[in-house]
């Protein structure tokens, strides 16, 4: 908040930003941001939507409010990511236990029991016990999935509330700010000026978007795995069978629509895909007696988080932390 000494440099940067062509603006600005060369050009999508930039007096008031907001949103993103990591790893251990119990049950009939084979009904009892275990792990897996959905929806919310709008008439004596737009003319980005040292609000949004997108994609892939693992069962194939269009828990589709993962046209979740790849979207079909290799691939896919580029995520947090002079860890 006490960024007063830096204000003059920011003001001189200001007129540069709305340069005539966006391409030249991005190239000139990327050269001036050599310290963060790995990031995308900070402000390519910037358009001067605000015909009359904020008067300097308001800018002076807007900046601290915007800075406070951005700090809160970014630290929310950091904590959501932590939540994701912990629920993803507990989900992985539940999935592993589920698979192990399932395979033990499946091979119970052929298992060599040695002296135990004389015991009455031992296979049956063991099978029943393993069945019960699977039920427990299924519900645990589902609750880890729920936690992951919650983490991602909060991330989406945080990334969408990075702007700071002026509340009330601009000429009133008491200037207030809010994260909701009350005025069509107010784009909430302070006229595109840097909120801290270099980056405008829309650059912050862009980085947040890039980050959140990874988690959204990964969530959808995990949904497929959860679905497959939940429908894996030995007996009663019909009872457990789940379809892609089924809701895994009440309210799931509302959460998925917040993450843009629910298609209103087909009325089912969008099919999973990888980052940067088009999906040809064939129907997601499940087989409830997958062989052990397939189950192993499922667990590995869970573990690998192919859609999340951890290095890039750390890089984004580090760059933003540097920009905001806070350490986001």
């Amino acid at each position, binding site marked *: 908040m006490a960024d007063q000494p830096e204000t003059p440099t920011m003001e001189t940067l200001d007129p540069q930003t709305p340069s005539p062509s966006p391409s030249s603006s991005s190239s000139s600005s990327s050269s001036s941001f050599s310290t963060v060369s790995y990031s995308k050009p900070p402000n390519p999508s910037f358009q001067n939507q605000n015909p009359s930039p904020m008067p300097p007096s308001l800018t002076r008031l807007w900046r601290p409010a915007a800075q406070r907001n951005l700090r809160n949103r970014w630290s929310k993103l950091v904590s959501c990511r932590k939540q994701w990591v912990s629920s993803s790893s507990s989900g992985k251990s539940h999935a592993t236990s589920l698979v192990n119990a399932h395979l033990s049950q499946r091979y119970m009939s052929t298992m060599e029991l040695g002296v135990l084979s004389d015991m009455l009904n031992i296979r049956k009892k063991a099978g029943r016990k393993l069945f019960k275990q699977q039920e427990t792990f299924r519900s645990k897996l589902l609750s880890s999935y729920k936690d992951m959905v919650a983490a991602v929806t909060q991330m989406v919310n945080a990334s969408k509330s990075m702007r700071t709008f002026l509340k009330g008439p601009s000429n009133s004596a008491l200037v207030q700010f809010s994260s909701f737009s009350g005025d069509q003319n107010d784009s909430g980005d302070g006229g595109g000026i840097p909120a801290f040292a270099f980056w405008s609000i829309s650059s912050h949004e862009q980085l947040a978007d890039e980050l959140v997108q990874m988690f959204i994609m990964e969530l959808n892939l995990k949904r497929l795995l959860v679905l497959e693992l939940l429908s894996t069962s030995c007996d009663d194939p019909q009872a457990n069978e789940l379809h892609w269009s089924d809701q895994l828990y009440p309210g799931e589709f509302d959460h998925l629509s917040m993450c843009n993962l629910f298609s209103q046209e087909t009325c089912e979740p969008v099919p999973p895909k990888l980052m940067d790849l088009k*999906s040809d979207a064939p129907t997601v079909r499940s087989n409830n007696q997958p062989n052990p290799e397939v189950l192993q691939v499922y667990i590995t896919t869970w573990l690998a988080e192919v859609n999340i580029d951890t290095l890039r995520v750390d890089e984004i947090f580090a760059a933003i932390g540097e920009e905001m002079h806070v350490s986001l860890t």
Partner: protein
Amino acid sequence: MEAMVKKYQQKFRKVRDEMSRWDELQTRLISQFISASSIIQRLQVLQDSKNYGSLNCVAGVEDALLRKQLESLEVIFLSLKRTMEEFHGIVFSIEKVHRDGRQQIKGGSNQPSAKQLQLRVGVKPTLADCLDGLMVLYDMHHSEYLLKASVVSALSTLTLKPSASDLCALQQLLIDQPNIPKDEGRQMTKEEDNKDKEQSSNLMCHITCKFGKNFK
């Protein structure tokens, strides 16, 4: 003479500290090795699109998964290398203690006679015992380090044509530390409580059991 034996006591204490660091590193090495070998064993399964089940509807998942796994494998190899360097550091420092000990006797101004070397004061060990002890400790750790280094390099060649039984044998070799007989090492450094050691070997057992059970 007694003062000299005291000095040796300090040296043994230092070696004992190095050995407890060795045990920590050993635990780390084993877990790194297990992670690497489970990825290596998975690679073949991951290369067959028949094993992807419903994931086949996600375009490109096979390539992405393989790439991610190879990346993690590379990271693990790097940390294995770092762990091996730390092992080398321990060997180096035990060697230094041993060399200093020998210097103290052979290079000092008043060299003790052969008789003095064998002189026993009370329950304390003789100077010759001390010197031999340091020598043996250095030898054990040095040869064990060489063994570990060759096992780790064998692991990277196995990446290309993995065999589960080979991986298992290598892992067992790392765990067993054949060059370091547990009881002997302990006696020499007069380590009274070996709780830590037991704990770490229990942990290893635990890890291997878990490792063996999965997906079998």
